[in-house]
Each structure stands twice: as C-alpha cells, then as structure tokens.
C-alpha cells in the first residue's frame, strides 16, 4: 500500500502519528508545512493524507484540494485544534473524507484512517 502523508508542524504530534500508524502496519511520510506537503503530493502516490488545518505557511484545505487533483484522487482527513462548525463544513466542502478535533483519541484516529482506506478500496 502507498504511504500515508501526515502534514503537521507539531513535531511531537507527527512522531505520535507515525508510531500509531506504524503499529497498524502503515507506512508514513511527513511534512511540516503546506509547501512541503504539496511537493510530496506531486512527487509520489499516497494512500491517504492527514493534514492539520492551520499550517505555518498556509491552509490545510489547500492540501485537501490538491489531494483531490492527483491522478488518482487521494482521500484526506483534516485534524484541527481550532474546531468549529464552519471549519468542519469548509473541510468537507473542500473534499475531506473526515474531520477530527485535537486532542483526539488515538483509537478514533486509527478507526477513521482504517475506515477511509477501506472505503477507498471499494469499487
């Protein structure tokens, strides 16, 4: 399976994402900025993108939109520490498959990742 891209500028949280997803057998690549995330999206096929909404150099929704424009549209999940109905609606409107609020239960993240990947595999 292609790797999962994590886009978040919180280094410790990226490490936590990696540990949680590695334990479930997923490969992970990470980016600490919007620009870096967009470059990885252009460069390699991905199974899923998990992005923070507020990035130091831009908007996580740009990542979500770019993921939809890849040759094989890549599903994405938005994770934010600044939850609001408006940001949830904007995320889903931009094409995100799911929305999670920080702090989140590790089990909820894993369930959401697994659910999104299963949905993608179904014809």
């Amino acid at each position, binding site marked *: 399976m292609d790797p999962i891209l994590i886009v978040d500028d919180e280094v410790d949280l990226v490490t936590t994402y990696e540990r949680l997803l590695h334990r479930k057998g997923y490969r992970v690549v990470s980016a600490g900025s919007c620009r870096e995330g967009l470059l990885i999206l252009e460069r390699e096929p991905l199974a899923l993108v998990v992005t923070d909404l507020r990035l130091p150099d831009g908007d996580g929704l740009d990542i979500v939109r770019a993921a939809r424009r890849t040759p094989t549209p890549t599903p994405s999940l938005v994770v934010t520490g600044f939850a609001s109905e408006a940001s949830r609606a904007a995320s889903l409107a931009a094409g995100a498959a799911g929305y999670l609020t*920080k702090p989140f*239960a590790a089990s909820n993240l894993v369930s959401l990742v697994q659910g999104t990947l299963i949905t993608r595999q179904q014809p």
Partner: protein
Amino acid sequence: MNVSALMTVPPITTGPDTLVVEARQLMSNRRIRHLLVTDGPKLLGIITDRDMRLNLPSPATSLSVWDINYVLARMTVASVMTKSVITVESGRDALVAAHLMLDHKIGALPVVEAGSVVGIITETDLLRAFVQAS
C-alpha cells in the same frame, strides 16, 4: 491493549506561569478537563477543572468583588496544580492505567514514552474502549 492505543493526543500543555483564568479559557476552548503543566519537555504538574473550582474563592467569602478579581487575575497554574503526577508508560497494558486511576482516585494519567509526555489517558478513554469492545 496498550495505553498508546487508547490515549488522547496531542497532550494539551501550558507553562507554570500561565494565569489560572487563561488556563480555564484554554480548557474550555479545547473541551478538556485535565491540563498538563510543563517546562519544555519536563512535566511539572497537572491541573484539573476541579482544581480550578476548588481554588476559586467561596461564595461566602468576605472578599469584595474587587479583591476576588485581584486575586484571580494574579493566580498562576503553578499555585494550584498537583505537583506529584502519576504517569504511565505508553507501552503498558491499559489495565495498569485503570488500576492506577482507581488506586489513586484520579481521572487521568499523562502518558510518557522515553521520558517525554506523548499523550494523556483519561477515564473517558477507558470507557470508550470498554464500549467499543462490548
């Protein structure tokens, strides 16, 4: 099941010099009941919404509104936090976390890995696991 599979991440933290009123706002905004107090990677304490309530002046206080506001405006989390924090390693069985919470009558444990705080496990996380498993 390991603690790491059930914990809540990322840990929401604040510094010891944060004012209690600011910490309350942070906890309200993030919808959390436990806030970890850290100095860089070092865990200094934990503060709960209960700690906040218990440290507010009693309604029967003889202090004037002005005095209450004066006290509240200067109270820092370091003055109300619990300093002896019980933690649990991320690789431990969740049952160990549950026993620690029961034995010490606490609602949350900071989760540590290689000396760093990586998350927090709460009663809610354990209840969620119980519900999901049933």
